[in-house]
């Protein structure tokens, strides 16, 4: 009983309340009157997922047929009926050399996902073997004051995910460190607010691509003569600059709209500016600051893909772009896998922020 209570609390806290309902189903705790609830929270979502996969399957099948017919038609016109017939049997046999290139079906995507995982396992094994092999040598090299030999093989899909997460968190941290203090100053002073307003209004809608180019221009010059790879630096700075606006605007709004009663209390008690900010203004604007941070993190994750692609910085964006350029048979399916991974990670990041928000904020109403 106690355990399920904590589970219920934790999942509700994280906005994953439906998990409890599923657990109740398996432990037989579901009452009859809960049936409607169960229908709404479990059955309908699962049905909608199945419906989605079904539609996707049919859609990809019909696209596949259109593409196949077109290919055969073209072979008939260019090379004659024999070639067309040969192509038809080739396509029907499922041979990978002649498959039409179109939207992959759910099953293709699933098998690509598994092949990506296999690939990851092979690469990890390689890497482990390499590290083991060079361990003794590296120790010697370090002792001699030389650089260690590092694994420079191709990164696996999972490595790319972690690289992307690193970039997004670095960018998010940068956005937080710039936008929150700046937002507090802007919110506190009407003069600063009016002098910064044009700045915010102009830069807020600028596209991630342009931010990337701007950061590229500056960082390239600053790092002149340095042999280090600047793609990570450039991409995380661009991500941060692109995504910080929501936090900036929300922080400024939160700070400038602190309940007048609290400000009056601070005035009557003659709190100093430092105390006023940390004891009154900041706690009371935390809910809005967190709303801003949540938007910032989701924007950061969204623009990351485009920026990695441009910056040629390793990560999911680059993965998607390379697969697209690659044009191999299962490239399209791998792109769809990346799409789902991006979506699911984005959702989990959002939940993570919600959990932190519920934790630190006094306002215990359910924020979605």
């Amino acid at each position, binding site marked *: 009983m106690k355990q399920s209570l904590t589970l219920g609390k934790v999942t509700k806290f994280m906005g994953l309340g439906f998990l409890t309902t599923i657990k109740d189903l398996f432990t037989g705790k579901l009452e009859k009157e809960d049936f409607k609830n169960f229908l709404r929270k479990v059955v309908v979502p699962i049905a909608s997922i199945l419906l989605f996969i079904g539609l996707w399957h049919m859609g990809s099948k019909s696209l596949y047929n259109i593409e196949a017919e077109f290919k055969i038609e073209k072979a008939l016109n260019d090379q004659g009926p024999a070639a067309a017939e040969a192509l038809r049997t080739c396509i029907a046999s499922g041979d990978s050399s002649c498959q039409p290139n179109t939207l992959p079906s759910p099953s293709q995507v699933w098998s690509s996902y598994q092949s990506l995982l296999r690939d990851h396992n092979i690469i990890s094994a390689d890497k482990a073997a390499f590290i083991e092999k060079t361990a003794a040598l590296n120790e010697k090299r370090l002792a001699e004051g030389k650089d260690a030999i590092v694994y420079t093989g191709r990164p696996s899909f999972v490595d790319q995910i972690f690289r992307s997460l690193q970039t997004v968190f670095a960018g998010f941290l940068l956005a937080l460190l710039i936008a929150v203090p700046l937002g507090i100053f802007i919110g506190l002073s009407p003069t600063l607010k009016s002098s910064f307003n044009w700045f915010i209004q102009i830069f807020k809608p600028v596209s991630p691509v342009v931010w990337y180019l701007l950061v590229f221009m500056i960082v390239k010059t600053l790092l002149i003569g340095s042999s280090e790879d600047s793609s990570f630096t450039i991409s995380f700075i661009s991500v941060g600059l692109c995504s910080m606006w929501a936090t900036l605007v929300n922080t400024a709004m939160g700070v400038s709209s602190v*309940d007048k*009663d*609290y400000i*009056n*209390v601070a*005035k*009557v*008690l*003659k*709190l100093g500016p430092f*105390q006023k900010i940390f*004891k*009154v203004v900041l*706690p*009371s604007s*935390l809910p809005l600051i967190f709303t801003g941070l949540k938007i910032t993190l989701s924007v950061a994750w969204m623009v990351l893909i485009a920026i990695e692609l441009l910056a040629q910085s390793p990560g999911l964006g680059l993965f998607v772009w390379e697969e697209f350029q690659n044009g191999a048979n299962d490239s399209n399916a791998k792109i769809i896998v990346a799409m789902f991974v991006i979506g699911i990670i984005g959702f989990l990041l959002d939940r993570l922020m919600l959990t932190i928000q519920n934790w630190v*904020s*006094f*306002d*215990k109403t359910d924020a979605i």
Partner: protein
Amino acid sequence: MSTIIKNKTKIITETSGFPSKDVMLDLKDLKKIYPTPKGDYVVLEDLNLQIRKEEFVTIIGHSGCGKTTMLSMIAGLNPISGGNISVLGKHIKGPGPDRGVIFQAPSLMPWMTALQNVLLGVNQVFPDATKSQRNDVAKYYLQKVGLEDAFNKRASELSQGMQQRVGIARAFAIKPKVLLLDEPFGMLDSLTRGELQDILIEIWNKEKITAVMITHDVDEAIFLADRVVMMTSGPKAKIGDVLDIDFERPRTRKSVLEHNDYYKYRKHLIDFLEH
């Protein structure tokens, strides 16, 4: 109308009669003007009021007559347009902890516990005391308002009445020279209001801090006050009448209600308000 004017002249001669060493709070020719596009809007004009040390004054008047404006001017939260306000002969400049305020809304920081809310003021006023001394002060006043079990409860978890108790504790704990109460019980139901009036008067009997309280409630005004100040309706509101309440202290609700003069006082106030 003529009676009001007559009363006013009477008050001026009467209030200026206090020996100046007994005066805690002195409002002199106080004026409040809000400029509007259609010309100045005069809320208060030539308002004169003297309040003695250890006196409890309630102010009663119709909504919008400028009572709250006057109180927030005394608190220093609203700039003075003309005249001046002095505490113990010194003109006030802005807000300060020598004038504690109990607001209409409890105005507690909802993310702090009851104790932290009281300590916020105590730490500010007694910076030289040790941490445990300050804690003791805050706890003492929370005990006085009956919250000894709620020290570590967050303000957002307390009921409105409990929150206002914390508000009372916070105001008394900073040991102000003047206590300003802006309809502190206006938002509460009548049972809770009665409870809080008892708590307030109990602490006040001990501390005897000069108090100015705005209220809409005639019974509350009589029960708590040494003097009830009646304000005329705005614009250009001023003091219409002053009624001395001669009940001995400490008072109980029962003794007040059974007192022969109670209905006389009550009639006087209601006659003024319905005038």
